[in-house]
């Protein structure tokens, strides 16, 4: 087991990716009560945005990242305003189907515009850091650092800021929040945009490591759902614990049992947690709304 250090690094990279992706998913579920099927496609847009801006406008990694985030946030704002918001108070099924439609539309626009060829995203962080037997590329290091900073900032934001407090209020009791005069619709918009922002950032961070492909979102969202259900639907600490649990669980399984067992183990963890605590690690029983 001389490669424990390397596994720690690998597990952290996978864990942080899962956490940042799942945080957006759980935030949107917790506050809007919406399962966002298009989450993976916004993650894919993060990677494609960087690719297009780099290739066609010659921007660098960081400037293209910032431009992509601004663009996708704007897109998320418009989508929320004109599709989610009008539907959110109707049957749950409507908004669910809307996000499903959005995911298909985005996926196919990308396929039509850029084809199915995998695309490379350039990054200035190309070097490899070797500490003894442990290797980590700077891009992965950046992913871990940025990911951890985002996780900490998000926690601070939810706990301390006014908007964060309003969000929590809406999440805990929608009717009560409405009665006290909290502008629920605006909180919804802000949450959706914030959640999508997290998906976009994880796409931008992972893009240079895995290439951008149109279907990268559909595989990411599967694991995203597992993390969110594992941690407890709508729970932020749940997504964090769930993401790292899954990341390290897969890593350990892959090494001890063989790589083909890693998905078996991650779903096994999910089943065990759900058997013991059906609402997820940090979940709580929701009142019917």
């Amino acid at each position, binding site marked *: 087991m001389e490669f424990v250090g390397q596994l720690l690094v690998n597990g952290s990279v996978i864990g942080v990716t899962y956490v940042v992706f799942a945080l957006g998913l759980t935030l949107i579920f917790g506050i809007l009560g919406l399962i966002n099927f298009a989450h993976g496609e916004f993650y894919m847009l993060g990677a494609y945005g960087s690719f297009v801006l780099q290739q066609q406008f010659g921007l660098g990694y960081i400037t293209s990242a910032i431009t992509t985030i601004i663009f996708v946030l704007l897109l998320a704002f418009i989508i929320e305003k004109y599709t989610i918001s009008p539907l959110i108070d109707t049957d749950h099924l409507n908004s669910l189907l809307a996000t499903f439609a959005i995911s298909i539309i985005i996926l196919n626009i990308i396929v039509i515009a850029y084809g199915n060829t995998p695309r490379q995203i350039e990054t200035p962080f190309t070097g490899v850091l070797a500490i003894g037997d442990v290797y980590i590329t700077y891009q992965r290091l950046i992913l871990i650092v940025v990911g951890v900073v985002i996780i900490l900032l998000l926690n601070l934001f939810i706990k301390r800021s006014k908007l964060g407090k309003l969000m929590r209020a809406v999440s805990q009791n929608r009717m009560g929040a409405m009665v006290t005069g909290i502008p629920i619709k605006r909180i919804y918009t802000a949450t959706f945009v914030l959640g999508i922002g997290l998906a976009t950032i994880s796409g931008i961070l992972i893009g240079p490591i895995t290439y951008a492909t149109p279907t990268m979102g559909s595989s990411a969202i599967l694991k995203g759902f597992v993390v969110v259900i594992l941690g407890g639907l709508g729970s932020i600490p749940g997504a964090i614990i769930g993401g790292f649990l899954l990341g390290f669980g897969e890593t350990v399984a892959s090494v001890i049992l063989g*790589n083909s067992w890693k998905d078996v183990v991650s779903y096994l963890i999910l089943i065990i947690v759900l058997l013991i605590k059906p609402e997820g690690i940090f979940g709580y029983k929701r009142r019917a709304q």
Partner: protein
Amino acid sequence: MRKIFMILLTMMFILGACSQGSSGDNGNNGSSESNDGGGDTVKIGVVAPLTGPAALYGEQVEAGAKLAAKLINEEGGILGGKQIELVIEDDQSKPEVGLSKYKELIEVKNVDAITGGVNSSVSMATKDIAKDRILNIVTISKAPEIMADRDNYRFRLNSTNDMDGESFHKFISETLQPKTVAVIVENTDYGQAEIEALRRNWSSENDPEIVGVEFFELEDTDYTNPLTKLKSLNADALYVVGAAIEINSAVFSQAHQLGFNDTMKILSPGNINMEVVKLAGEGGEGVISADLYQNSIDNEMNKMFVEKFEQEYGYLPEKMELLGFESIWLTAKAMDQAGSANDYDKIAEILSSNNWESPRGEVVFENGQAQGEVLPLVIKNGEIVPYEQ
């Protein structure tokens, strides 16, 4: 809540299904360029997918075929001045469409031979209608069953995975001579078959020893865990079995980042192309693989082929273009020697008994299957070149 999860699950499956089939459907230049010249032309049908998921391969085959017809016609045609006329049909990668196109070509358009066949499923569906009736040159389709219960008129140009494996694995064992090999392989029928082939072909004591095998799923994007485990085995070579461009590139670039630098890197045969080279970057440098054709092969015919191809289309040909070219070229040459465009017994006899010059080297048929070893290749300075010790 339960209801929502049921819906969620259902949708995930639909989502999966949708994302599988999304491919471009460009190019619709099917149909014929017919001028119904009757006795003055030799008509050869080309059935290939020009729309649908395999459209890119179909277009590549078509480009090669058209070039062959053009070159032959420029030199005055065959059989004392008859021009080659291609009747190009789109099978859309669908067996039933391929079958109806074959029927139409044989019974209505009266072609003298049919080439093409990119998808194995289409070639399986069409082999019986052509049986004992017409020369049927299967160009790309790889499934072994296509050559089963063969009539004398069915030939195949592409090699099968087993053929590729046999000669490439022998080359690794005899020329590269790694003592130990760690394998990372996709968890699919293809991956399993390739692992079995490796174990079969390396069964003697002098062959390399497989010290570790790790599988990955096609949805995976991070291969650092299996690679870390394989790295700890300190094998002489890392053998990657994968068919997808982005997977092969990512595995090699992640192996490079994990410090696999002194390890010999090998990619399963038939999967190397310029896209992999571009995407893998530094990680692809030094990767050894094999294929039955590479456009820098040094022979007169290949130089001519590559030059004319680039002139015509503005890019360099790869395997698919070569096989499309060969399908028309060999058919025409054999007809010419037989002195007839539809005496199939004679044409088949000539195809089987001769050694044919082709851009890839010499082509020989055994029971209709083109023989030949795969060519070892290596990525060097961002180019794919023949391997030299």
